[in-house]
Structure formats: structure tokens, C-alpha cells
């Protein structure tokens, strides 16, 4: 039987990898992919806690976070496309329209 710790460490590793992606990617779509990895790690945590506590609430939360993430990706990519139309780039460093 694998302990809860193993799942939590696995989720922490995936979260750290996603954070690395968010911090180092130049492309806005690449940053979104990193955020996806981080949200995924959180889902692993929620399901693991639900399994080891014998409580379904964690699974219900995971269903909600999955749906919210899909909505977030749809809106995020729509924003990326809209930015692309105006600026002709999705490099996060060059999106400095609000810089004073």
C-alpha cells in the first residue's frame, strides 16, 4: 500500500515543475501550460486526501477545479489571440502596453 506522503510528494514535484515553466517561459501560451501543470498537481492532492480520509468532498472539489480550469484556458487563450491581433506577438516580455 502506497502512503499518502508518496502522492503528496509527487504532486509537489509536478507543482514545482509547473512553477519553473511559468517562471522561465517567454511565450504566453507556454506560461498557460505551466499553470495547467500546477493546477493538475493540486488535483492530485485533492483526490489523494479524499481517498485517504474516506471523504468524497475532495473528489467533488476536483470536478469543480477541472471545469473551472477548462473555462480559464478558453478565456486565457481568447485573450492571447486578441493580444496577437493587436501586438503581433505573444512574448510576455514585449507585452508592456501598461508600462508607464
Amino acid at each position, binding site marked *: *500500500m*502506497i*502512503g*499518502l*506522503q*508518496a*502522492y*503528496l510528494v*509527487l504532486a*509537489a*514535484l*509536478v*507543482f*514545482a*515543475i*509547473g*512553477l*519553473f*515553466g511559468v*517562471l*522561465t*517561459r*517567454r*511565450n504566453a*501560451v*507556454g506560461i*498557460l*501550460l*505551466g499553470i*495547467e*501543470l500546477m493546477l*493538475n498537481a493540486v*488535483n*492530485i492532492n485533492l*483526490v489523494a486526501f*479524499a*481517498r*485517504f*480520509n*474516506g471523504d*468524497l*468532498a475532495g473528489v*467533488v472539489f476536483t*470536478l*469543480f477545479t*477541472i*471545469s*473551472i480550469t*477548462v*473555462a480559464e*484556458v*478558453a*478565456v486565457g487563450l*481568447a*485573450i*492571447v*489571440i486578441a493580444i*496577437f*491581433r493587436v501586438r*503581433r506577438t505573444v512574448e510576455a516580455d514585449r507585452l508592456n502596453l501598461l508600462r508607464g
Partner: protein
Amino acid sequence: MTLETVGFGVVAALLLASSLAVVLTPNLFHSVLYLAAALVLTGVVFLLLEQPFLFAVQLLLYAGGVVTIVVFAIMLTERLVGDRIGQASRHPINGAIVAAAVFAGIVGFLIQAPVRATAPAPAGDTTAALGRALVGPFAVTLELLGVLLVAALLGAVYFARSEE
């Protein structure tokens, strides 16, 4: 060394490898394909935790929906500029240091926290109980989620509309 331990080890190794590939490949399109692999492997982790329904949801919404949307967006934006989108990384050392620090912080917390080592006996098929929970104690949240999805749909249509 049971079959479950071996399975968990293999799935964990594959998940970590594909996650690393997502953040390290220079080609954005390959990155999305590795993300699809990572999402499917997360679904397999859900299977190991005895949640087959979540595995199906993960495949349909995440691996199916999200990956399709991202591939669409990449192709659309590539067509707009007319050339391939590269994606170099910046400050990889600093990023690695911050990510490692966050990981060390989480693991340090995990070591101190008292956690139950053994899981209760599997409850069998929990899908029916899940459905009852969604329309019972979580009914208001479910309705709010519907409102959010409609808002996201309208927002996406607004952003993606043609100029005229």
C-alpha cells in the same frame, strides 16, 4: 513490493518525465503534446486512487478539451504571423532555484505534518454518491459553476469575434 507499488512508481516516473518535457522542449507544439501525456498520466494516478469516474472526466475535459483548444490557438496565432512560434526560456537558473525552494518548503511541511499512512478500505463504486453530493450539499456551487461557464463562453466569443 506489490503490483500497486510498481505501478505507482512507473506512473510517477512517466508523469514527472512528461512534465519536465512540457517546460523544457523548445518547440511549443511538442510541449502541448507532452502536456496531453502528463494529463492522461494524472488520470491514471486518479485510477490508482480508485476514482475511475474522475479518470473519465480528466480524459474528456482535460486531455480532450484543453489540448484541442491549445492546439487550435497555436495554429491560429501561427497563421496570423505566418511563421513558427519559438519559445526560448529565460533565466532558467533563477527559475530552477525558486521552484526548488518551493518544493523544499512543501516537503519540509509534509515531513512535520502527521498524516495517516494507511487508507481506509476502498468504498467500491463512488460515482452514485458523487452525483448525489453534486445535487445535494454542493448544489449551489454546481449552479455557480454553470454561471461561470456561460460567462466564460460569452467572454471567449467576445474576444474571438471578427473586427467588423
